[in-house]
């Protein structure tokens, strides 16, 4: 009897080991069939940051475009879309659903750094490849996680923040800089590197003001700025609050240049304010090689409008398509016998990829996952939107 039990336990243990091996092997190809690659696209499709989901719409349009071109090595994208509402709890639920219920091959997308940081402990240990296509917190992808699975396909905070800082300090005579910011990881990802650059260039931060999400009035912040008289203002704010801040700044006669993040875009801000005079001193990070409706962006905008004809093209629309181009290149390089490890290895080998979308090229290495290192700035010059590399200097 004892001997039988021993045999039974040994058999069960062997089965367990085999099933684990099977699971490990299945993990490598989970989400793949002979004809499809299942990709999970998370984004804030609802909520007050939902205009960022235009980036995921652009990405999904690109995947559909690739499908219509015949796919990659005989496989087409099978897109599973999940809403995070830019809320960490919903983001975690969305990630778990995509990983364990939908069993996607890889994750791509994710606006809202706070959500991405909250989701990271759920995603990173699984080793599922995850390409960040919009969020900017550098800690999402660096240092390289143990499974080497996370990649940043847009400029992360240091790249964006240093661009903001350099642009501010490129205006002759700027010394005293004030900042208005949300108190979250997303805002810190922009403002902290910008402050470092400003201080290194001899500037000083004379005011640090909070303007939280959902606030509908910025009178107190604007009056403090009026009192402090800075030379430039850093505004690390989401879109709705940027509009409220600029409106109140104009209202109280504060006509100081404002440098905004990639969380806003020039045309959208103008549309929401409905007042060109209120945005004439507003400068904003601009990730693209051209104006949003410029000739170099037409190809990409056309792809979006082909698959989402009711979509309004804004400065967010094509941002994530660049990392889509990188993903497609890596999937092609990984070959027909695709596994997650091969895909990760192919992503790590992308060097100097000019996507024709972003103002930076994409380079990923085994030790650096911030693929994109620079950005342009957009602002109104003589009443017309212009792409700038420094104060008064065209891109």
């Amino acid at each position, binding site marked *: 009897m004892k001997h039988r039990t021993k045999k039974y336990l040994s058999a069960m243990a062997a089965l367990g080991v085999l099933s684990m091996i099977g699971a490990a092997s299945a993990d490598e190809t989970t989400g793949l069939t002979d004809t499809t690659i299942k990709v999970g696209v998370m984004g804030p499709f609802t*909520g007050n940051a939902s205009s960022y989901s235009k980036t995921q719409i652009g990405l999904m349009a690109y995947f559909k475009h690739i499908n219509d071109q015949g796919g990659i090595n005989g496989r087409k994208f099978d897109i599973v879309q999940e809403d995070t509402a830019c809320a960490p709890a919903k983001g975690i639920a969305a990630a778990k659903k995509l990983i364990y219920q939908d069993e996607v091959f890889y994750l791509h997308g994710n606006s809202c750094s706070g959500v991405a940081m909250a989701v990271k402990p759920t995603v990173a240990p699984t080793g599922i490849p995850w390409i960040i296509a919009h969020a900017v917190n550098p800690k999402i992808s660096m240092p390289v996680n143990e499974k080497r699975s996370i990649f940043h396909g847009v400029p992360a905070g240091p790249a964006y923040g240093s661009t903001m800082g350099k642009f501010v300090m490129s205006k002759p005579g700027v010394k005293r800089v004030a900042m208005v910011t949300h108190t979250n990881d997303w805002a810190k990802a922009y403002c902290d590197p910008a402050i470092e650059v400003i201080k290194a260039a001899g500037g000083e931060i004379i005011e640090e003001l909070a303007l939280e999400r959902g606030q509908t009035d910025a009178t107190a912040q604007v009056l403090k700025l009026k*009192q402090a008289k800075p030379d430039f203002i850093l505004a690390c704010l989401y879109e709705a609050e940027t509009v409220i801040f600029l409106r109140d700044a104009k*209202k109280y006669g504060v006509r100081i240049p404002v440098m905004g993040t990639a969380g806003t875009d020039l045309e959208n801000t103008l549309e929401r304010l409905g007042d060109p005079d209120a945005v004439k001193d507003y400068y904003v990070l601009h990730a693209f090689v051209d104006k949003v409706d410029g000739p170099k962006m037409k190809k990409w905008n056309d792809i979006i409008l082909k698959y989402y004809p009711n979509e309004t093209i804004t400065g967010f629309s094509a941002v994530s398509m660049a990392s889509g181009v990188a993903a497609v290149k890596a999937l092609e390089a990984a070959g027909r016998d695709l596994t997650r490890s091969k895909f990760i290895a192919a992503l790590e080998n992308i060097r100097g990829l000019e996507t024709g979308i972003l103002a930076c090229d994409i380079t990923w290495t085994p030790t650096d996952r911030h693929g994109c290192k620079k950005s342009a700035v957009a602002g109104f010059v003589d009443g017309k939107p212009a792409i700038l590399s420094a104060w008064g200097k065209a891109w």
Partner: protein
Amino acid sequence: MYYFLQLTLSGLAQGAIYGLIALSMTVVYRATTVVNFGHGDFVMAGAFTVYVLVIYLGLPYVPAAVLAVVIMFFLGMGISRGFIDPIKTGPHIGFAMMSISLGYVLRGGARTLWGREVFPMPRVYDIDPIFIGELVVTGDVLFISAIVAVLLTIFFLIFYRTAIGIVIQAVYQSERGATLVGINVQAFHQSMWGVGLAMGAIGGILIAPISLLYPDLGATFLIRGFAAMTLGGFGSLGGAIVGGLLLGVAEQNFGFYINTALIDITAYLVIVAVLVIRPTGLFGKAVTVRV
């Protein structure tokens, strides 16, 4: 002194909206003892109704706003009749759950329809700011203050100077007594839900051109409405207004003179402070139970 006056002016305009929302919550609370935890979403729904009427149906703004208020009035009556009356015999917590759920249903509906956008709300007014020395009295401040003042005057005149007001006060004081003298209390509850939602909708319509319009808009105002109610005294109509105005002014001045991070938590600080120091608020009455 300039900064204090400017902040106070802006705070009064914000506070007028908080007060209006708190008053609309108080009307329902006084009439039915139900605290409407979904009220912020009804505020949002009022603003979105105007948006639909103006943008999609092409109505002029003012008729659209009036129609939206009427729609919200009937929605309030319908909610009372369809969702609140049937659970009256259940535990009181059921009212809270129901109001939260109805609010989320509205929010979810708005997210489904307009989820990915933050909309600029059309403006009915374009009033040039008035400058008194360095002091700026903006069009927003003038318009919101004027509308709220007119509404409150009408509301309090009806409440204290008309036969309808006497009926309302009678039911507030004793539902059983009101029933005995022939007042239809159920219909009264339904009307007060209608009035509450209509007034909340006016708050939403006034604030949306300033705050922009999005489905989660109401959450910000719900907590401020509660804070204004608490400060003014739960159940006090005048207290709701005074509480809202004081909260608006406090937010601005705390933000400027102490720290801008305080603006977002002023409402919570007010609730905590009032409940600890004077639980009845400024104008509330302590409830005494004779045993």
